[in-house]
């Protein structure tokens, strides 16, 4: 392993950002900056695609590991990927160019700064998914707050200041406890290197408190009920690209953290807190679905649906079964695609009518047929219709849950029905019905770049719905290894009294 491919992945967007920062654009429209950003993010996508191809899916070990001394004698800069992280990296590098494409229509001022913020954010996001050291992970996990705070605050809607502050302070408050836990782990075990920690294990008597500290951070970020309230605000006020990044990738950092750290480092504590996670997840699934039904703002509805979907993710992870964890990962990838697509769809009509209120729309099918088609695909993806990627994830999660606890699985299944209810109702209210509102009639159908961005998302949603094998194949070995290594199966059997 000579070429530091992961570090290049991490650094490339920052280099692009520096380039945009230092090179003066010739015209006021910053066309060239846009092309630079698009080029860099696409290059990053192809690089990660190449990484996925050369990645050996049959190996359990972390691959492409790079290690360099960083804070001498204490923390090493260590990155590496396994089957789980590679998917999240792919998701990140896939979504970011789409975000860059949306800036044309949505960002009216300070485009250059916006592109820089997105590129820097991409660096942090990729870094989070491949860091193999707790301190490096924390650093990048937190650092993402800065660009996101600015994205919401500078380019956001009316209540952007409130939302940006809420987002920042909620997340920061959750994370500081994780920092204490990380430092404690260092003093307990003498290392913050994740691979070494996997081998060493952490004494069971420390695990519960440490687990809670990590949980406080991940629960806010996921977000889990009752600390989810920052998400609807942040989503509603953020510009389209910001909402897309937030829903598609930033939320996934927490799910990834649950798998990598909560399960990997504290298996005993994870088992101990299973009832807590189940309860919170079920509340998230049922309660936020009901809340979503009542929303009048499209973005808010999708934001609450995100909370519900992430409820399935946490539920699946803490079943600690092969199907449950695989389903959660699949659900996260699928939700990344679908929610990104839904926010883009909202962005499309918002750019035309400048309102997100559902009752201001209706009957769009007669003037925007192309839009109606793609929106339908995403709606069906969000409610988990068989044949879309949303189905596979939810199905696997429910299967894993059924193995463990039939009651929980039954209640969670109700959430699927509620999901269908609010999504279909949303679709009905916006697309069908009569075209009554006057200024709606002037709306034009999808422009070329919108068709490109939306169809790029339609394809994987349907493809992975019919053929989930490439994704499952990539995570299978890593998940099985995670379960074997921590004896999660054995723990499960003990819990069941076998």
């Amino acid at each position, binding site marked *: 392993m000579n070429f530091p491919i992961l570090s290049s992945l991490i650094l490339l967007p920052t280099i692009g950002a520096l380039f945009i920062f230092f090179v003066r654009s010739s015209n006021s429209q910053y066309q060239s900056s846009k092309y630079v950003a698009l080029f860099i993010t696409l290059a990053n996508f192809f690089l990660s695609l190449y990484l996925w191809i050369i990645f050996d899916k049959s190996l359990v070990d972390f691959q492409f590991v790079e290690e360099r001394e960083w804070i001498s004698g204490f923390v090493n800069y260590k990155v590496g990927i396994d089957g789980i992280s590679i998917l999240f990296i792919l998701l990140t590098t896939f979504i970011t160019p789409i975000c860059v494409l949306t800036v044309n229509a949505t960002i009216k001022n300070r485009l250059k700064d916006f592109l820089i913020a997105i590129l820097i954010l991409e660096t942090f996001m990729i870094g989070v998914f491949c860091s193999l050291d707790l301190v490096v992970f924390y650093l990048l996990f*937190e*650092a993402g707050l800065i660009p996101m705070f600015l994205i919401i605050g500078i380019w956001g809607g009316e209540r952007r*200041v409130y939302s940006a502050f809420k987002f920042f302070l909620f997340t*920061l408050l959750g994370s*500081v406890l994780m920092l*204490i836990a990380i430092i404690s782990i260092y003093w307990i075990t003498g290392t913050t290197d994740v691979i070494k920690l996997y081998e060493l294990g952490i004494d069971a008597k420390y695990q519960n408190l440490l687990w809670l500290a990590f949980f406080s951070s991940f629960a806010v970020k996921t977000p889990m009920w009752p600390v989810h309230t920052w998400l609807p605000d942040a989503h509603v006020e953020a510009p389209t690209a910001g909402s897309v990044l937030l829903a598609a990738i930033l939320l996934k950092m927490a799910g990834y953290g649950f798998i990598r750290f909560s399960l990997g480092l504290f298996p005993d504590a994870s088992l101990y807190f299973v009832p807590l996670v189940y309860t919170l997840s079920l509340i998230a699934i049922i309660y936020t679905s009901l809340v979503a039904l009542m929303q009048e703002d499209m973005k808010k509805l999708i934001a609450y649906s995100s909370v519900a979907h992430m409820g399935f993710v946490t539920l699946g992870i803490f079943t600690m079964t092969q199907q449950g964890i695989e389903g959660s990962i699949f659900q996260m990838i699928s939700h990344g695609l679908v929610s990104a697509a839904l926010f883009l769809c909202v962005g499309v009509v918002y750019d035309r009518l400048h309102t997100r209120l559902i009752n201001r729309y209706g009957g769009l099918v007669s003037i925007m047929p192309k839009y109606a088609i793609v929106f339908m695909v995403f709606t069906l993806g969000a409610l988990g219709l068989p044949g879309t990627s949303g189905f596979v994830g939810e199905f696997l999660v429910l299967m894993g849950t059924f193995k463990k606890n039939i009651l929980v699985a039954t209640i969670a299944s109700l959430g699927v029905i509620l999901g269908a209810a609010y999504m279909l109702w949303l679709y009905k209210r916006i697309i069908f019905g009569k075209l009554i509102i006057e200024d709606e009639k002037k709306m034009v159908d999808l422009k070329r770049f919108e068709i490109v961005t939306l169809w790029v998302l339609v394809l994987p949603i349907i493809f992975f719905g019919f053929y989930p094998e490439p994704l499952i194949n990539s995570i299978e070995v890593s998940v099985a290894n995670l379960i074997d290594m921590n004896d999660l199966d054995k723990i499960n059997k003990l819990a069941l009294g076998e």
Partner: protein
Amino acid sequence: MENLQLIIPELFISIMIMFLLIFGVFKKNSSQLVYNLTTVSLVAALALLINLDTQIQPLLFDNSYNIDSLSRFMKILLILSGIFVMLSSSKYIQISKISKIEYPILILCSILGMMVMISSNDLIVFYMGLELQSLALYVLASFNRDNLLSTESGLKYFVLSALSSGLLLYGCSLIYGFSETTNFNQIMVNTKEIEYGLTFGIVFILVGLAFKISAVPFHMWAPDVYQGSPTSVTVFFALLPKIAALTVFIRFLYIPFYELGDQWQMIIIFLSIASMVFGAVAAIGQKNLKRLIAYSSISHMGYALAGLSTGTTQGVQSSITYITIYLVMNLAFFSCLFMLKRNDEYYENIDDLSGLSKNHPLLSLSLLVVLFSLAGIPPLAGFFAKFYIFVAVINEKMYFLAIVGLLATVIAAFYYLRIIKIIYFDPEKEKFESKHNLGLKFTLVASTFFILAYFIYPSGIVDIISQININ
């Protein structure tokens, strides 16, 4: 007398003070020249200090003067900050019409006093240094004598500081009475047993020192003095006395009274928690940037004290790292403040920053970096400063302190975010001048770059500091 060559930097500064005083009196209109000469002599003192061979013996003059690795590092830090303060504030002094020959000379006096404080290994030497720096600072605080706020701050600082000096002196006399010596090393030998008088002495001295670094509850002077003094003096207040006082804190706690750790540890923990929390909460309502930074520095001193309270070498090193990074951040912040100038008038209210990012994108970007760093958000330098502190604190199992400290960070983040909000999210106002002198620009660029790029090679400073041994 053979040790004189080991205190050449101090001697050089003393000679320069006398020379510049005479020179300034005899040469008409030489204030700018004296100012520049002061800067040059600080650079020369720095060169002398770096070239000094301290390997021979650290203790001089009957063990009353210590030039070990700690004092060497702190003095370099002190003089470097002094140089940057001089570079960044030269224009300010001219425009606010306080450009008199006494100004730079008083700064030199005060730096000399701080150097003596840093090196002191004896209560009397320590008190001498303290008074030398304080007397110079009283005058500096009220230097803008036509300004009501400035005279008020000078007087306030004088009265309160005199009180704390009195307490400190009383503590010194108690310790002398119970240990029969004023020498730090000798005190350690003579105080194997705890006596009430001794404990009282420690407490009084800690009160005096806490006053100097404005730790809660001895912080009352700081907001008024920071706000009232000319900004060039405020930046001096915010940086240099903290270095000197923290060094004395370290020396005092870790040489004579190291064995009595259980006597002072609770006090330091209290000072630390109170400062962190109070600094964070009180800054929220502030409208004046200088006042706000006063509360912010109170809070930052709390973190530095948290490192000290551990009673370990690692804790001390983390405190020294913290103060180093703190200095750079404050230097960058004040450099930004010096740039808020329009028609020969300086602006220092938070509202004046409104929409700054539209007219001055680069200045706003540096402020953004500095403020996020002050808030301790990774990957900026401020995060690492706090990180080292918490590593040391948690190693001693002081979880309560760590959790309170981190929660205070979140509260503090709010008011830093508020400034960022005003800079980036609010509507723009009139433009500020964009022409600045080279020294100011250099200070800002260098310090911002340090904050931004610190994470690339964090080991550099840690390695230097880890070579400092206290005992």
